[in-house]
């Protein structure tokens, strides 16, 4: 199964591209012109999302640097002890939705501190792998089309993140404890 999934992820991109090109030959589509036209948009989109990315990344970087997360770690400690959640994983739960690179950094930290085969590492890995950086995704996707009023999108994303965290703690305790 694992072998199959690894092979699949290796082959999937080349296969998609080859399939698209063969279909284009079959339909006599000028592939090169279409490619260049499409690629031209990549630049415009990247430039367009910059202001939104700056706004989001400044907020999240400030929040992490301010020490607010360490404060929350103290508040959550009794709750975590009660549910047998390793305290090392608090920071990754709080940073997961804020910053992707920070999350990977914290994961590396947890591996260093507790060892790669520890329960904390497994829980942190599941948390990292099962979610996306909500704030980043929101700023890129809505930024690219100029949406400024997010309505309930962020709230729904964050609530889903919270459910995901609870599920991660629960599922991991079944699998690994």
């Amino acid at each position, binding site marked *: 199964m694992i072998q199959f999934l690894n092979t699949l992820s290796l082959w999937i991109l080349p296969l998609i591209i080859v399939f698209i090109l063969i279909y284009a030959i079959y339909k006599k589509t000028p592939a090169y012109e279409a490619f260049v036209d499409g690629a031209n948009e990549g630049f415009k989109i990247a430039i367009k999302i910059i202001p939104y990315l700056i706004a989001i990344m400044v907020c999240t970087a400030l929040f992490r640097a301010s020490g607010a997360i360490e404060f929350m770690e103290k508040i959550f400690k009794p709750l975590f002890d009660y549910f047998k959640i390793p305290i090392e994983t608090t920071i990754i739960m709080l940073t997961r939705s804020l910053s992707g690179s920070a999350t990977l950094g914290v994961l590396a930290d947890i591996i260093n501190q507790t060892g*790669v085969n520890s329960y904390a590492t497994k829980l942190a890995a599941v948390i990292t792998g099962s979610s996306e950086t909500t704030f980043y995704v929101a700023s890129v996707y809505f930024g690219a089309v100029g949406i400024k009023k997010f309505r309930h999108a962020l709230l729904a994303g964050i609530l889903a993140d919270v459910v995901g965290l609870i599920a991660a703690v629960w599922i991991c305790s079944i699998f690994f404890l």
Partner: protein
Amino acid sequence: MNYIFIFLILVSFIFAAINNRLDIATDEMLKASQRAVEIAFGLIGIMGFWLGIVNIAKKSGLMDVLSKIIQKPLLLIFPDIKENKEAQSNIALNISANALGLSNAATPFGIKAMENLQSQNKDKNRATNSMCTFLAINTAGFQIVPAVVLAILSANGMQNPTQIILPTLIVTSIAFISALFFAKILERFYK
């Protein structure tokens, strides 16, 4: 968004002042704005490549074929895109690329899908229901194989890193379904 923006910045400065970390916080703030530009520029190449490939698929009519296949289940989640064939195929491509762990490919598809949804939006500043639902399921980050995490674990010498695949898949499915659920419930309260 306005409130979150103001709240995060004010709270951060208050905590930074209490913790005596104003210097670090200010420094991080400025570095972050620099990083935002670097990330955006880093996206140009990948984004250009995938948008090019997708444009070939669009011009050849392959996208219409795809949208026909996935139309039925998709319309259950996004009821207002019945006439919007391009949105249908781009959403399908985005979700499948994400599921396969190809987030580099998923982002351009997702942005294209957002543009397609925006084209039928009356108020260009304000997200439609479908846009919110689409964003929420993307932030849930559904994927079948968490490739990056597996790479980190095996690089650090975990004996059997693949043991996290099944629990991760269960958790991400729960998050995906709840994102969909919350988006659908909350849209009634944000008219």
